[in-house]
């Protein structure tokens, strides 16, 4: 009868339809997987590329930033640029290289105001509280101050003069009579603007701004510094402990 024929035909059509769907789903699945893997690879930011002030933590930033470049447009200096296709920085996202052009620390933070998505956190209104990275005096061998000279340029250009970078006096063992003024970065104050790196007088900067996760160490959770705990407590941690005399090497027979 003519009732059987269409249903047999239907079966073939259905089978063909399912095969078509499976093929498309398979292809698109492969595409997704490749894209996902590429994303993992493309997510890492080069160590010297810094995000604009107020940028969310990198992982959140890459979900929030829609790569419009409005922060770049409202930056009054040639600091920010958008990564173009083929660069190491995830394509279309804003960044700056401190050695080329540091953040000039505008008081009104126009880049953050320009961001339409909140990838640059609108609650970040005080530029001195921003955290773009952390300056690290990365090469003591070439730093002029470490060689006993009075360069001091990184200290002088710091927008938080005397707070984010201080000059700590140390004895100069080479001359044995002078002091060395060692530039010392304080991580609770440094905004990572990069002016120190920009103005380092060496051919290649001895002080560089790195993302905080590369620049900071971390003390173990369980670790306690005795003198700090003592200060907190106001008295000795173990009362009545006997302080034995220190034996110095030269005292040995």
């Amino acid at each position, binding site marked *: 009868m003519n009732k059987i024929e269409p249903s047999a035909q239907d079966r073939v059509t259905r089978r063909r339809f399912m095969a078509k769907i499976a093929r498309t789903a398979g292809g698109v699945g492969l*595409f997704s997987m490749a894209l*996902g893997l590429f994303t993992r690879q493309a997510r890492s930011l080069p160590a010297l590329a810094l995000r604009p002030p107020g940028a969310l933590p990198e992982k959140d930033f890459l*979900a929030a930033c829609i*790569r*419009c470049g409005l922060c770049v447009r409202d930056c009054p200096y040639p600091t920010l640029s958008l990564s*173009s296709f083929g660069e190491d920085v995830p*394509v279309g996202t804003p960044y700056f290289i401190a050695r080329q052009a540091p953040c000039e620390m505008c008081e009104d933070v126009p880049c953050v105001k320009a961001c*339409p*998505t909140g990838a640059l956190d609108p609650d970040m209104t005080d530029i001195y509280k921003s955290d773009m990275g952390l300056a690290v005096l990365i090469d003591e061998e070439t730093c002029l101050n470490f060689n006993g000279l009075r360069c001091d340029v990184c200290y002088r250009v710091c927008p938080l003069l005397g707070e984010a970078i201080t000059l700590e006096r140390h004895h100069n063992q080479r001359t044995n009579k002078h002091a060395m003024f060692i530039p010392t970065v304080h991580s609770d104050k440094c905004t990572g603007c990069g002016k120190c790196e920009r103005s380092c007088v060496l051919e290649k900067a001895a002080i560089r701004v790195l993302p905080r996760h590369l620049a900071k160490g971390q003390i173990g959770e369980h670790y306690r510094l005795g003198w700090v705990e003592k200060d907190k407590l106001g008295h000795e941690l173990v009362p009545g402990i006997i302080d034995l005399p220190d034996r110095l090497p030269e005292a040995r027979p």
Partner: protein
Amino acid sequence: MTIKQSIGQDAINSKGWLAAHKWLFLRRFTQLAILGLFLAGPLVGIWIVKGNLTSSLTLGFLPLTDPYVLLQSLAAGHTLGLTALSGATIVAVFYALVGGRVYCAFVCPMNVVTDAARWLAKRFNLSKGWVPQREIRLWLLGATLLTALISGTLAWELINPVSILHRSLVFGFGYTWTMVLAVFLFDLLISRRGWCGHICPVGAFYGLLGTFSLIRVAAKKREQCNDCMDCFAVCPEPHVITPALRGAESGTGPVIISRDCTNCGRCIDVCAENVFTFDLRFNNQAPIISNGVKASSTPSSRKAA
């Protein structure tokens, strides 16, 4: 069988060259003008529009955001951003009214590239090549959102040729030419109208956005059609024409309601008989057929092409 020497020659003969290219010109003008507005700032310092197509600020107060990019951002887990949300709403409402794929025809910079590939393919009489299913773009659209959801980043935007091309034009080109060349060669040698007509998930998104759009092309005077096939030859999505143009007998209305139609208006240009015109989707009265039943006004556009 003779190959027609020049598509649209009849239209040029009957309407004149200018009238036979009216919508094409308008389209190229719009594409250039929009790009010009974005470039006026960085090139000559006239800041009418800032940003790029993913998000922009016009005259310092009007935010416009690509709703597809925002959707990816939402999928990736970022929910804040009121300015972007309102900008995306404005854009979404606009395209939902005038036709989603108006974006493809009048705004997208990649359209110029793929149109150039199509023009060259026609010059050299290149074969159709691979014909992927048209639904593949919808699958890809889903895949881009899923990848954003799983990876927590705007994964697709790392390789999206559409947004990367526009951003590169405005902010610096880098290696984007490799991507443009890839799309161009894909359309030229591998698959005719492959990128815009089959693959591009951006187009798929805007197509869905304009599913119920008001402004549509309609084959108002379809009874005058002389079957010259010029409209099918120029149409980037030729399957959308059939139900409207040939639907008189089956009781289908004359309005092209497939969401795949880009409202480019090229069919209006090349028709010597003035069959096509822009119209509202509601003006889709199907003719009463012999048994007096008024047919549904939603044809299965998939059957065509």
